[in-house]
């Protein structure tokens, strides 16, 4: 790229726009967001799959960069939306990871352990991880994009191309299940349908 220093100062939207004429400008977007996306993917699928998720996400994003709405300056919702689709194709892998974690008698059996998995915290986390495995995939996407991806409600709506009301209803449903899991009470049956609006 002709002027890397300038590119580093551009907004995400300006970088995507620039990559129409200078494809390599997209690499700056990668350097900006891939490390955190890798962390997000690692938490959902484990370290081994995270690199594939990041790679596929950015390749898809690059190939469809003309579709990025330049009215949004921040590309994170767009990238995390693509990543959600990529992760969604590995649904079984994700569920198996959560179940393996929930079943493991000792934290050392988990290939990539959270720092906070002291025995005491693990006792708290296991029901939560079990709950994650049982969530509807749409609810899990919303919950984890907010909790782990650090997106706002509006950004999640943009990422998943769903109404803001659906984000709220999905998050509300997921939070209730999380609460029940933490309290040790049996979870209620599947909740109502999404409430748009």
């Amino acid at each position, binding site marked *: 790229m002709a002027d890397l220093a300038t590119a580093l100062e551009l907004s995400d939207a300006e970088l995507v726009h620039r990559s*129409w*004429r200078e494809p390599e400008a997209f690499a700056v977007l990668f350097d900006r967001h891939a490390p955190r996306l890798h962390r997000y993917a690692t938490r959902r699928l484990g370290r081994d799959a*995270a*690199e594939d998720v*990041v790679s596929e996400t950015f390749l898809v994003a690059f190939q469809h960069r003309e579709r990025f709405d*330049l*009215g949004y300056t921040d590309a994170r919702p767009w990238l995390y939306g693509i990543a959600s689709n990529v992760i969604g194709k590995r649904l079984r892998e994700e569920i198996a990871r959560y179940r393996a974690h929930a079943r493991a008698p000792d934290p050392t059996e988990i290939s990539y352990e959270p720092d906070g998995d002291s025995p005491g915290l693990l006792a*708290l*986390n296991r029901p939560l991880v079990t709950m994650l495995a049982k969530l509807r995939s749409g609810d899990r996407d919303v919950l984890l994009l907010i909790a782990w991806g650090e997106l706002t409600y509006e950004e999640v709506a943009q990422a998943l191309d769903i109404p803001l009301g659906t984000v709220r209803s999905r998050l509300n449903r997921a939070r209730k299940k*999380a609460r029940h899991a933490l309290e040790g009470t049996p979870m209620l049956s599947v909740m109502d349908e999404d409430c748009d609006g």
Partner: protein
Amino acid sequence: MDEMDAVRSLWAGTPEGSAKDLATARASLLRTCQSTPERQEQPRPSPRRRLFGRMWRRGLPRLATAAGLAGAVAAAVLVHQGNLMGPATPANAKELFALAAAATEGQPDLRPRPDQYVRTSSLVAAGLMMRRSDGQWAEALQVRREERWVPAEAGLPMLQREETLSTSPADKDRPLPAHITKALSKREGVVEDILYSTSCKDAPDATLSFLRLHTWPTEVEALSQRVRAVAARRPSPAHTRLWATLSELIRLSAARPSLTGALYQVAAGVDGVTLVRDAVDVAGRVGVAAAFDDGEGTRYELIFDRETYRYLGEREVPTGDRAPRGPAREVPRTQSPSGSAVMGVEVVDRLPKLSADASRMTIPC
């Protein structure tokens, strides 16, 4: 700590991906970036597109089906002129060809001077089968860049340039023989030039050369007759000749969109052609394809951009539905999709500087 804090604490100590973690992904992205041609400036999405985009995407397929071919052509003109409301989605291969034909209307033919050249650049992928020391077959996928400088008129030399970009195992679980990997890797990045010269009045390879395409008619019926006459002389099986001939002509006529558009209309009349909604060309561009299945385990696709309906390239996809006819093959057929992607077509004044060990060949008349 509420339930959201508890969820946030799960795997909270996971570090961000390091440069080492991301090296392969970054290299893969860069390779794709570097093999992607620069695109023309596009208008920023209008508010109208953002308002109606989703409705348009959902509603159009039904409309297009009802309206038929004429409606599809009209939609294509809309897309070509402004593309304000998102792409039309063809319902079948005939509609796709109609949209592609309409899209060529605004593209002028290249008109090189007699002393100039038409330069084409493409990415080509091909599978190579090789036997390992354990007797098993392993497949390599080779990607190379191909460039051609074809003179506007006969008498000037023609240059063919090829550069192998990568050779990798098609299946990670079946690594290639080490000595072959070593030999192939030495060829990566090496530019191989072949300069062809001839004293013939007409272009060599008389049937389907760039040089001769200017004599082909653009009137559809006349073109159809000529294509069928050429197809009848091909050695390939009778049921595949017409598609193979059209595919080759479409690829070669990139410098003459007026002919390409007419070829699409001829192709729309080929029986048994289906629509593939998610086809990926050799350069990794996702498009929509018209596909012809030869019934012997291979599907031949012509891939078009989803929004502009410009021709992107062609691809052969092993389907494995049926074994090929004829005697059993000693070498198994490759399982990787192969094909070529058009990366650029332009008029240039002269040939580039030849590589140091360029081959020179004279084509007899």
